[in-house]
């Protein structure tokens, strides 16, 4: 599914450019959930932006493919149409654009890029209603401008709402647990777990083990200084929580 090989990438312009990803290799097969953990500054968010094509992040070497397609050459919207979805650590406010308009535009843009027909208004509304109910989202909220005036928890739930509406093939969750209380965390995790399927892969980026109690990963990778330095099963997350990155990494590297 997602295959990253010896990836190197820099952040910043020209002479200011700093290498943040340093030969990262990682494979997430379809149907699996992998977690990436790592200390601050390890390159976790950078990896998510490099994979989704944010400008200002330049790939200097290596490759990344999704189902065999080279995604690094694509515009962000093409990657989205191929099924890449990033749940943002800090979801962005879009004043003046209601949630429903936004998601419907996104959905139809993706369909257009894939050569599919637009979704009909009744189908869209029906789907939206079901998902909103599942995520305990107020229908009124979906008429408001995207993320404007939303609490931290509401923003994260709205990310999951968009994810469930757009049904991407590969999900990247960037620090989805940050800013969530335990109830919101459970709701969000239920949404994510409902998305698990044999055709879908997920990369869960997190600082703490807490989220992984609710979204159980198949594998845990430790990212440090822009590379995967350790890979293990779910127990690795618990060890990191107990012993800290220094403790776990000290023995390995």
């Amino acid at each position: 599914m997602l295959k990253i090989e010896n990836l190197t990438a820099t952040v910043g312009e020209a002479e200011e450019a700093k290498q943040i990803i340093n030969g990262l290799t990682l494979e997430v097969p379809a149907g699996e959930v992998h977690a990436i953990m790592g200390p601050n500054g390890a390159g976790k968010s950078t990896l998510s932006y490099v994979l989704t094509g944010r400008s200002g992040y330049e790939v200097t070497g290596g490759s990344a493919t999704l189902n065999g397609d080279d995604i690094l050459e694509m515009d962000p919207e093409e990657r989205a149409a191929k099924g890449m979805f990033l749940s943002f650590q800090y979801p962005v406010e879009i004043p003046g654009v209601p949630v429903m308009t936004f998601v419907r535009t996104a959905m139809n843009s993706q369909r257009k890029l894939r050569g599919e027909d637009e979704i009909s208004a009744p189908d869209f509304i029906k789907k939206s209603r079901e998902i909103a109910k599942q995520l305990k989202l107020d229908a009124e909220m979906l008429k408001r401008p995207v993320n404007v005036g939303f609490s931290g928890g509401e923003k994260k739930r709205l990310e999951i709402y968009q994810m469930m509406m757009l049904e991407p093939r590969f999900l990247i969750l960037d620090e989805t647990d940050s800013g969530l209380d335990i109830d919101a965390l459970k709701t969000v995790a239920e949404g994510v777990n409902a998305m698990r399927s044999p055709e879908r892969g997920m990369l869960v980026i997190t600082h703490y083990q807490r989220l992984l109690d609710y979204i159980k990963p198949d594998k845990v990778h430790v990212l440090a200084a822009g590379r995967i330095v350790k890979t293990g099963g779910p127990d690795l997350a618990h060890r990191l929580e107990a012993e800290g990155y220094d403790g776990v990494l000290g023995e390995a590297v």
Partner: protein
Amino acid sequence: MTTALRDLIANPNAAELELIARYGMLPEDARRERAFEAFAKGGLPHRRVEGWHWTDFKAALPVIETPAETGVAADPLPTEGALVFSFTPTGFTWPEDLPEGIRVLAKPEAQAFGASEDMPLGALAAALAGGKTKPGTLMIEVTGQDLPRLHFRFSGDGEANFARVQIILRPGAKLAISESYLGGAGFTASLMEYSLQAGAEFSRTVYQRAGKAEVLAATAAVQLDEGADYRQTTLAFGSKLSRLETRVTHQETGAKATLNAAYLCAAGHHADITTEVRHGAPACVTRQLTKGAVLDGGRGVYQGKFFVPRNVGQKTDADMQHNALLLEEGAEVFAKPELEIYADDVECAHGNTSGALDANQMFYMRQRGIAEEEARALLTEAFIAEALEETGELEDVLREQARAWLAR
């Protein structure tokens, strides 16, 4: 042409000579003469004249001629149920049946224009409106409340189109009007005068769209009596050179003016939104919101001024906001917000911003699959939308026009 007439303007260009010739062909009229002299003192305003620095008519109008390629735009404003008054370079049409509460007089002669010194192109319109087929002044008196919208259309191929309209709203009268400036003539100049008596309510929607060859000066002078409520919304796409100028005088207590505008300028299009509001009476309210978005090669100009004299402007409540988006490299926006306040017990605020679209918002939208151009259009539409909200039934039409432009 007599020598005396020829000497009216110092160093005239071909366009100014043509304007003098047109004036010479109109019947003699002392008021017309005063208006023309007020224009002629400076001729076509140019960059060295205060208030015209960024919008230079003398440079944009070397000659007056029918554009080889006109950009006459379709009129998007609905006319069903409206009373349509149409000014073309050569003619004028107006509705035969008028409801009670509206009286229309098409006067051949000019009326006095008091502010001609401050508004040279308004003075020019006052001097040159009229002739065999067009009224010198179209006077409309409104006493009713539940009236159809009056729609004024300025379009049609030709050299020049001059028009002057005076509307007076008697106490308590209510009226909505719209104006479409659609291009076609090489030079269009209009003077609209709106006088709202006590408690009158007036809504004005202005739509302007023309090509890269047309030059337009639409001037409005507005006077507000006690408790009058004036609401204006403009959507301008510019042309070779377009200036939409509004001067509002609060002349009695408790009047309210709302002046909103949005401008969208593509390459070769210049839109100038200029306003001046004089708080000449206590406790008057002004709300002004101007939003613009400009592409490479387009030019937006915003000049706003609030003037609050010391002895009469106490308790003024006024707010002026201008926000512009430079959508591409090479887009130009010039802004000059001015507060000139001498009274001490007032609430006046202003804000002025210009910048590019937010990169975070753009990436967020594209990550969700929205193509770059569409994301840009959605964000820009959302950005200007607030300035079009006061237009009631016409809001959707204006939004649609803006959306179509953004999606081009």
